[in-house]
């Protein structure tokens, strides 16, 4: 099973994600520079965090026009599991693959802290090993992480079960405490918190097992035993 890690100019969590995929979960991961194309037979794609194009104009908006996004779109339509983390989520939103938008945090500051997520949809390829409402201790690190959707979109999201993660408490002022969403089909998931920073006990001060389930869910979906 091959997982692609897309690298944009300014991505800075690509190496962390690659480490987790290969060294922790023994997956076959490969970097893809944003000007390259993605192989049609790839099994999953991850857009890691960072500051693509230095967050100029708006986080993720320039990277959303990178050549590789066309391939990401095609793979998304084919039902390939795709995960966008932090800046990766912002790029998925800016490219229209996921609904909503990410705004500056209510504090107007960059926020780096440990939070708790609640799993709201355990049917996606990245959450199928969770119990519904299961808690995940996980860090956030972003300046533009406040998810916003107007009331019509919010209604749609609820109806189609597209809210994947909520913060257990108000963190940054996001609509309905949303921390992560998926597309209607559920194969594309975007989330602001960083699971790759939470799966190893050595650096997780709380509990690394819940975050690990995000990657174990992908393994389960692909039928790989770990």
């Amino acid at each position, binding site marked *: 099973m091959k997982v692609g890690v897309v690298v944009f100019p300014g991505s800075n969590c690509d190496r962390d994600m690659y480490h987790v995929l290969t060294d922790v979960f023994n997956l076959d991961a490969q970097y893809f520079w944003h000007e390259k194309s993605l192989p049609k037979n790839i099994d999953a794609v991850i857009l890691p965090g960072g500051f693509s194009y230095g967050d100029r104009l708006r986080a993720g908006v320039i990277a959303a026009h990178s050549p590789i996004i066309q391939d990401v779109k095609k793979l998304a339509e084919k039902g390939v599991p795709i995960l966008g983390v932090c800046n990766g989520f912002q790029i998925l939103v800016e490219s229209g693959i996921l609904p909503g938008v990410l705004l500056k945090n209510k504090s107007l500051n960059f926020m*780096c802290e440990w939070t708790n997520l609640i799993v709201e949809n355990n049917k996606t390829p990245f959450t199928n090993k969770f119990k519904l409402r299961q808690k995940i201790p996980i860090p956030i690190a972003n300046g533009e992480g406040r998810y916003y959707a107007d009331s019509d979109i919010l209604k749609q999201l609820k109806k189609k079960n597209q809210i994947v993660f909520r913060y257990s408490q108000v963190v940054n002022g996001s609509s309905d405490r949303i921390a992560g969403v998926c597309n209607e089909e559920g194969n594309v998931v975007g989330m602001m918190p960083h699971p790759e920073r939470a799966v190893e006990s050595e650096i997780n001060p709380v509990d690394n097992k819940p975050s690990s389930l995000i990657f174990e869910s992908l393994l389960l979906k692909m039928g790989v035993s770990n």
Partner: protein
Amino acid sequence: MSLETHELLELKSKIGRNPTSTELQIVAAEWSEHCSYKSSKKHLKMLPMTGPLVINEKGYDSGVLDVGDGYVVTAHIESHNHPSAVEPFGGAATGVGGVIRDILSAGTRPIAIFDGLRFGDIEKDLQARWLFKNAVSGVAAYGNCLGIPTIGGEVEFDNCYQNYALVDVAAIGFGKKKNLIKNHAKKGDLVVLLGGSTGRDGIGGSQFASDSLETEDRSAIQIPDPFIEKLIIEAVLEARNEKLIHAMKDLGGGGLSCAISETADALDVGIKMDVQKVHTRESDMHPDEIMASESQERMLIITDKIKLKKLETICKKFHIECSVIGSVTSDNKMHVKKNEKTFANLPIDVVANATLLDLPSKKPEYLKTIENEKKLKIISDYSKTLMKILSSPNIASKIWVYGQYDHEVGIRTVIKPGGDASVLRLDNGKFLSAKIDGNPKQCYINPREGAIGCFEEACRNVVCTGAKPIGMLDHLQFGNPKDPEIFWTFLESLKGLTDFAKDFEIPCIGGKVSLYNETPAGPIKPTPVIGVLGLIEKKPLVPQKISESDCLVMIGNTKNEMGGSEYFEYVHKFVGGKCPTVNFSESKKNMKSVLEVIDNGLLKSVHDCSKGGLAVAVSELCMKNVIGCKISLEIIPGEKLDIDRLLFSESHSRYLLAFDKKNLKNLESLLKKNKVSFKLIGKFGGNKIQFVNGTKSIIDLRVDKTQKTWLNSLKDLVHS
């Protein structure tokens, strides 16, 4: 802002003619205090710079330590004080950028940032508050964008920094020993300028930084672009992997002038360059401006014709510009042309080696009476006093600061900021602990003992994580060195640091001197900032949750040395008294014992006693663990002292050890064996921070209330 008359005469006599305007620019930059260290260099040699782990190579801007298994750690510290005092966001951001490129120059990947920030009294001074807020934003904006975690630092406020700012940034790099750039060059090699374009920003920045801050010379201030820096880091590391780099230097103070002359000097070659080849932001720049510009995010690389093609391909991938601006010659001259016309042609050794000074020094007058204590007003309610100290800007939690820094990216941060030292995991299974510390209040009262105190405090902090100190960075920040009294304080601090470094066998692996830190209101207090790196071979002590009926042992004697303490300065508004001194043999014994008890797995948590003394250290343990504690003041180790001294003295070499009571016997026998001064001073439990003297209650505070004040007071102040 240029050469002094005698320096101009010296230059003329050395080259036997009148210098051109470009030559004057080049020499003024390189002979500035900022670049040449002319006032300090003679004396800095006293510091021990070698050791079993130190790797010394020519032309490095950062220190290199061998951490075993084929890996190295690099480290450096820099400041960006003058620019930050005028434009705090940009000044602090470019401060991060500069020190990161020093780490990159050695061929290592930057893996951590530390920042030391100092401003005036933010409670009263709105400008100080503005400087503070924006400097923090600048560090955050730059470091976060690079994806390099800012994992620690310190923030301090003191009136001596009114209308001024000290922004110190330290960085750590990590890499394989075999990937270190072995700086070398031979005739015919190409000189390449890579990265951002050269513009009209930061012109004369190093001279600006070598004078008192009297004007807001905005053209001397550089403009930051972390995105370009991130691309440079990745491009340079790719080029390093492909072995395309013969030698490398970042462009910092003095821009091309200093990078060219210092590279040629370190490699014992000459360099011929054409300013027409430099990619510039504006088309009509004069050669003088191109040579003096301190535009950021630029690297100078020496390579050869064959490797150039590959280097260009890498730069193209990242869309960063890369210009061949010249070539290496064998005449040991710095030859600057524009097309065929020569603008400068100077012997390298003249440019790169300013005449070093041996400035006069004299013990300052104020020190004669500084140790005299005044009569203090009597404290009737110590609970109130402790609460006041815990909410003071210097003692309150700095979560508002480090919460804006991405301190997790890179997934190495095992011990996060907010405690003593921060700890990173390394690829060889070992751990690196690091901390920076300064204490201008104590250094003002006793420049020598104060500096030693900073050094010991940084050591204590890394020891608390289970690490053995292996290297030190010093950043010496003072006022105008031509004032003999100020220069005396510089020399005293340096001598103190040297003594400690030699005695403890901790080599100085790098540092920086920043002088002329003055405003029209006067000089800053002596502000040496010391960074200490520690190595943990097995496992760090990650603080475990302290629970009901765990015990608290205190190691080290509390003494009547209150000068420079938060208690004197913040509560009583009194500057003076005797400042704490370090007893080297006790200090060593205590450090060794703490490491031994950690190694034996006897502890849940260790915390050192420093600013705010025992009362603050105990409160911090309680607030972090949300548990109460009862301390008996009559059994604190040391001589018999008044209550306020016991609570708030900032004596060094003291540690608080929290542990499960079942380990008490083992702990006591180990400490007794090591002949350490220690006492079981308290027990954890309940929800109150309590200090008693015999049966008399001295302090009684609820942990939750105290914690709320401590966590929020800095944020509330900034937003008020």
